[in-house]
């Protein structure tokens, strides 16, 4: 089985993201955000992107850099609470932002990965986010159609991957990564460590190799991966 080896360079990986592409980006805050793949994208400079991510990272970090560089037309996200720059760009209509409840965003992506057309939910039913959404009756209750989300490319961060693409995430760096890894046509993984195929325990693999197209090994983590001092409690 040693012939399956999905290793590639960050430059080749970034070249797979075309102008106008939809791109899912893993991460919830710093953990699980593929900062080095994002930096490769910044160098590649595709334009007119639709980004799908839980949040926009914080000002000057991660996908905020892509948005600040004007490469992103639309952002599909859950909240921007910690990023005043992107909120400002949204208010100035420099970027279109589509908000979803966090778990519904997760389910829409998961549904895309699971080959479903969508899910039915009552979340937000009595609020403005229900406006314009298709309603269905299920057991006498009115629920909303939330269509599944897919993307051209997913950028994923793993703690460990084998050469075939089996992945393991660490702690809260898991978040949206396994969902997005299932929902994109081309799945690019950056991994902190690559191991020989067969060394990960089959019961402990979080994302099976079938979902992964390309693997980029990141040897030296940039500063962005570290503990964010602004969130550390100072006694």
């Amino acid at each position: 089985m040693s012939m399956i080896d999905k290793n590639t360079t960050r430059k080749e990986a970034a070249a797979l993201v075309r102008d106008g592409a939809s791109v899912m980006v893993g991460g919830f805050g710093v953990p699980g955000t593929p900062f080095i793949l994002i930096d490769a994208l910044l160098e590649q400079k595709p334009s007119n992107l639709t980004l799908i991510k839980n949040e926009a990272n914080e000002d000057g970090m991660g996908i905020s850099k892509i948005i600040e560089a004007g490469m992103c037309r639309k952002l599909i996200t859950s909240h921007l609470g910690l990023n005043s720059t992107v909120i400002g760009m949204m208010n100035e209509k420099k970027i279109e932002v589509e908000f979803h409840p966090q778990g519904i965003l997760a389910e829409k992506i998961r549904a895309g990965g699971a080959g479903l057309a969508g899910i039915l939910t009552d979340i937000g039913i009595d609020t403005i986010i229900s406006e314009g959404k298709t309603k269905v009756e299920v057991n006498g209750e009115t629920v909303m159609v939330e269509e599944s989300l897919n993307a051209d490319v997913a950028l994923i961060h793993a703690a460990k991957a084998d050469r075939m693409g089996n992945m393991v995430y660490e702690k809260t760096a898991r978040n949206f990564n396994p969902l997005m890894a299932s929902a994109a046509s081309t799945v690019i993984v950056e991994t902190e460590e690559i191991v020989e195929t067969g060394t990960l325990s089959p019961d402990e693999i979080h994302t099976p190799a079938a979902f992964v197209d390309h693997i980029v090994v990141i040897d030296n983590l940039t500063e962005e991966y570290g503990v964010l001092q602004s969130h550390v409690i100072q006694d």
Partner: protein
Amino acid sequence: MSYKTKIAKRTAREIGPGQVINLGIGLPTLAMAYLPEDMPVLIHSENGILGMGRACRNGTEDRNLIDAGGGYPEIVKGASFFDSALSFSIIRGGRLDAAFLGTLEVSMNGDLANWIIPGKFAPGIGGGMELAQKARRLIITTTHTTRKGEPKLLKGCTLPLTAKACVDRIITELAVIDVTEEGFVLKEVAEESSVDEVVQKTGAPLIVPDENSIPTF
């Protein structure tokens, strides 16, 4: 004692042994510091933790371990990590005994408005709607009034709703108030306050069961 400490201490008393709970960002999270050290409780965080502990201090932070607000928590024995889909299955599936959220407004029928001020504040939704709609018990922790002194507890919300008829209890620096079918009911008054003050600062009728026997906190 600051108003934050007052609210946090009282909030901690809502949490019972063996419960699975979610503490929203801000005021609710502060309650964790006032839980008995040995309280067996499983604290959930939207980003994929069950079994969150207190905030890290003194350099014990782990770059891969944050809470939903971006802070660096410890974890307890028996903690687990999972993806965002499973995390919200715990919420929407009804496995949270209680959720604690801050707010902008609450109405007397339990409507919650805490995510948008048209034209001013619209940072997105996060996990708030799902916590509000699906926790078995929703407790709001908030200052009793806005910074301008205007009531946050109202007959009806003026801001876009987060969720309808979802609030069970409100804990402020002045009072503990339940939302019932009859409207707001005063359950406790702060030692530093009075029934009169609470009634005056509440923007909707407040049922006071027996003025002379309202417990203090």
